[in-house]
């Protein structure tokens, strides 16, 4: 199969007719941008002056020593403006929106990270902004909602379905089919109908381009393996693209193992046996769905990985055997987070910590003169409510209890 927007059998654009013209225009604008070297240059310059690109590649000497195997390098997407790789995609789409002359952006968000990034981009570019967020997530991730609102965005709680990420995506599409003329939907990951997977992968490829150069400069050769967590798959695609061409570099995607792959409470579309091919949210991929094709509830300690679908590009690379998939459980994630903080003074986001888990499992198998890269997609200090809760920290609870009483509890 070689249809545009397809990766092997995955991808496509399963969109309602009302968006046909919108997608035609979007494809045209994207293809023009992609073909125009000035566009990429403008993007890189924006990311270099507004965010902190190139983000560093940190040699984690203590962790390397601790595991006694490969040299561990960490690609520091946490140092991006707004605290995660989401900024790359969002700023890139912002430039495209400006070119298309639209004045309003909408986005879905689960953890809130993409919502904050989009609200930030909208403030910077002067766009109106509406963020759709599952009602459950609005309640869980109030700090992010607070920042989105302060940045000038309207946050709409989504009350349909499981009231989480996938429902926020549906709701964003419902907005878009109503106001496509002035509005662009800033899809947050390498999913959704074509050209989104290609577009998001392109913007995120900045991670891999940098990392490929940095590992050569700092380590003097190619890494043996590259690890990234996979929610929708954008940070993974971002870093993998720097190494896809070299078959000697093994690429490892790490999904949310939740309470275990046998528990039914996870979000592993590819690493578990629970995923199956389907078409939803505008594209074809491996979904966690029942035998009727109804999407299932997923679970992860990391809201950003808690999603039923996965990038069609990754589904293809998985099918081809080019990317290996693993899963990390919630418990493993907390342990890896703890170790990383104590050994390196670095606080990965819960999402990112999934990649650390698998890297830690494997680092000791490799020789000391080999290197691995872990893509640290974001920083964890945004997750304090979840992390402190997961660590069951008594002083934190006491602090919140007192604050709650101050506010009338």
């Amino acid at each position: 199969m070689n249809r545009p927007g397809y990766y092997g059998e995955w991808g496509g654009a399963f969109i309602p007719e009302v968006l046909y013209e919108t997608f035609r225009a979007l494809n045209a604008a994207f293809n023009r941008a992609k073909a125009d070297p000035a566009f990429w240059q403008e993007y890189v310059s924006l990311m270099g002056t507004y965010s902190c690109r190139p983000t560093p590649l940190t040699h984690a000497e203590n962790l390397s020593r601790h595991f006694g195997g490969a040299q561990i390098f960490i690609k520091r997407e946490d140092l991006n403006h707004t605290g995660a790789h989401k900024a790359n995609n969002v700023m890139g789409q912002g430039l495209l929106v400006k070119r298309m002359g639209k004045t309003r952006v909408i986005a879905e968000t689960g953890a809130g990270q993409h919502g904050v990034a989009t609200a930030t981009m909208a403030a910077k570019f002067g766009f109106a902004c509406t963020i759709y967020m599952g009602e459950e997530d609005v309640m869980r991730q109030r700090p992010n909602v607070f920042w989105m609102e302060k940045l000038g965005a309207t946050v709409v709680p989504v009350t349909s379905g499981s009231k989480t990420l996938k429902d926020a995506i549906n709701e964003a599409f419902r907005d878009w089919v109503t106001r496509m003329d002035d509005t662009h939907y800033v899809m947050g990951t390498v999913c959704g109908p074509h050209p989104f997977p290609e577009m998001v992968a392109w913007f995120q490829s900045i991670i891999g381009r940098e990392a490929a150069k940095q590992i050569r400069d700092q380590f003097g050769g190619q890494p043996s393996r590259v690890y990234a967590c996979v929610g929708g798959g954008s940070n993974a695609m971002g870093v993998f693209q720097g190494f896809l061409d070299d078959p000697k570099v093994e690429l490892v995607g790490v999904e949310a193992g939740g309470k275990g792959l046998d528990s039914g409470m996870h979000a592993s579309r590819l690493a578990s046996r629970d995923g199956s091919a389907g078409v939803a949210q505008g594209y074809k991929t491996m979904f966690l769905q029942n035998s009727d094709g109804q999407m299932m509830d997923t679970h992860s300690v990391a809201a950003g990985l808690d999603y039923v679908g996965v990038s069609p590009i990754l589904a293809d690379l998985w099918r081809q055997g080019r990317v290996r998939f693993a899963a990390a459980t919630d418990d493993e994630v907390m342990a890896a987070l703890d170790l990383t903080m104590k050994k390196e003074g670095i606080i990965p986001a819960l999402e990112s910590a999934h990649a650390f888990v698998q890297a830690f499992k494997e680092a000791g198998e490799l020789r000391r003169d080999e290197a691995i890269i872990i893509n640290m997609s974001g920083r964890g200090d945004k997750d304090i409510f979840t992390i402190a809760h997961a660590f069951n920290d008594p002083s934190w609870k006491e602090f919140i209890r007192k604050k709650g009483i101050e506010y009338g509890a």
Partner: protein
Amino acid sequence: MELSSQITTALARGDKKILLMTHLVLGYPSLDVNRRVIAQMVENGVDLIEMQIPFSEPMADGPVIVRANQEAIEKGITVRGCLDFAREITGAHGIPFLFMTYYNILFKFGVEKFFREAREIGIKGFIIPDLPPEEGEEFFALSEKYGIAPVLIFAPTSTPERMRELSGCSRGFIYCAARKGVTGRQTDFDEEFDAYMRRCRENTALPLAVGFGISRKEDVDYLTGKADIAVIGTKTINLVAEQGVEAVGPFIAGLR
């Protein structure tokens, strides 16, 4: 008889200046209520009925139908259950029935298997809002093979060129979305709408159904002469919820 000839015949008879198509969500609030609602609809002169097989991600629907999909699934409706119910209904009533659903329902069931079973049941057409022609190669081939009409959708954003393209793939009729957006909100029938309808006519020879936001006799009257089929969707779901099944008959009877 195929859907297109059924519609052409009905229109040609001349006793109805516009046909009525109604919509319901299978399993919401229950198959039993669906059964009674369909009976009322048929008795009161509805010409076609689209039965929506619930999907967990009804991207193109508005809040009322979204909730209906979700509750039907929560209450345990299955694709199997929908097919069995459809078999019973097509057996009981003489008008054409269509399935409306999202593509994953077919895909997961097996697209050809779904077509085969739908033909056995006597379903006349499929409306799949998230399946554009570009993604429908297999689907259209199977439509031909099993004689089930793929009903495509025109939108106010469709260009004349695009309409002709869609028309080429569509059978039976064209479903014209009366406005941008999702199901359930009222539509303003204005100058712009008229122009849109003229555009639709000019670019297809197929009968035109108009849906999205049609809820009153005035709406149906307005469409008469402009469209061939008026589609009543969300309105009957609300009616049943608010006034019960018995309200459906009089409502339908009063539309035309």
